[in-house]
């Protein structure tokens, strides 16, 4: 699967790529990088909001992917999910270690904030692909407060207690919002994937 393909499952191309990675073929790493580096950097940038640190995450994440390729098993999830998981962990580790969050919040610029928002330019869609449009649409359909809870957890690494404190919302409400949001996203993505496969 390419990162913009659908659904989130490892295709034969990716499995062959991982097999070459296990055999220490640097070209395979290059192809994997070409497919996912853009998303990994966007993710790191969304979490860290600092370009140089986000680029460090790209280097670290792909090296970790190279080193841990033999560990990857498609039985434990898609390749995309594995790569995203590694990249997110590295970025969140960096975020926590350097405690950039507070400083960044204090000086967060509009430009960076705008960049962090989901893509809403239709012109971008033609470049991003079907799967990306699905995710953007599914997120957009979420109530704002639900989307906020999901993004604070996913991109800021906050626990539900921290989200409740940050948003001054009852703990139970935060939990419910996240549950509802994830169920809606799952249903929306499954439905769109199903429509896509029929078309």
């Amino acid at each position, binding site marked *: 699967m390419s990162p913009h393909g659908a659904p989130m499952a490892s295709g034969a191309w990716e499995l062959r790529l991982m097999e070459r990675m296990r055999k*220490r073929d640097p070209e395979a790493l290059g192809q994997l990088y070409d497919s996912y*580096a*853009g*998303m990994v950097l966007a*993710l790191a940038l969304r979490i860290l909001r600092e370009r140089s640190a986000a*680029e460090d995450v790209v280097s670290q994440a792909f090296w970790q992917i190279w080193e841990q390729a033999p*560990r990857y098993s498609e039985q434990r*999830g898609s390749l995309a999910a594995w790569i995203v998981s590694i990249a997110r962990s590295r970025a969140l580790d960096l975020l926590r270690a350097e405690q950039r969050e507070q400083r960044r919040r204090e000086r967060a610029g509009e430009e960076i904030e705008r960049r962090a928002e989901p893509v809403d330019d239709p012109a971008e869609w033609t470049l*991003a692909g079907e799967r990306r449009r699905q995710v953007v649409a599914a997120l957009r359909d979420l109530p704002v407060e639900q989307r906020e809870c999901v993004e604070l957890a996913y991109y800021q690494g906050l626990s539900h207690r921290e989200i409740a404190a940050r948003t001054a919302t009852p703990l139970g409400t935060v939990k419910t919002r996240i549950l509802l949001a994830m169920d809606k996203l799952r249903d929306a993505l499954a439905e769109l994937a199903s429509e896509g496969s029929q078309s």
Partner: protein
Amino acid sequence: MSHPAFRELCALEAVGALEPGERAELDAHLEGCRECRDYLDGLLEVSASLPLALRPELPPPAIRAALLARAAQDRRPASSGWWMPWVAFAAAAGLAAVLMLQVRELQKELELAQARLGEQGRQIAQLQRELAPIRAATSRAIQLKGLETVPASHGKAIIDPRSGQGVFFAYQLPPPPPGKTYQLWALRGGQPFDAGVFVTDAEGNAYLLVEKLPPLDQVDAVAVTIEPEGGVPAPTGTMVLLGT
């Protein structure tokens, strides 16, 4: 915790919002709940899709070049899996445990064999000592007869006067009086030489290995007397056996 509550934990886990204590609780539940495992797997794929909504950012070409150059120089053999070292460790630990048990068993067997060997060595040495006077050309065999008090008793002695060694057997001797013991004497020219004290078994039989006689040119007679416990340097009590 109810089943819907675990679905809530699954949703929190999928976006990384669980508290540490809750993860342990969820893990325990997932061990036995296939439905929740499948549910969580589905949500993890959903959360992994979230970055797709972000506008891709193009990293500097230098990152790719450096990464591939580093990978090209990485000549380490590919690991066959994260579990391999643990499997190897577990196998080695298991093997070590088995070997330790075997070593302990072998040590026990060795100690037992050594004890048996030691005992056999002592028995062989005893037999050699017993055989020595019997085989010696200068040995003399003497039959002993019971005297007045113990007419049914008798014995025999084989003594080598030159080496001072010998063996003695007594038969059907009554137990000595309390505080008394039997003592064997070798007589040379009417002079008694202490050949040792002995006790009888329940049937009145006795055996004595004679080792401490001084070298004698000849043994004229062998006698047994009743003496105070521990024996005496020269006979003082009643003679019960005599052989010439």
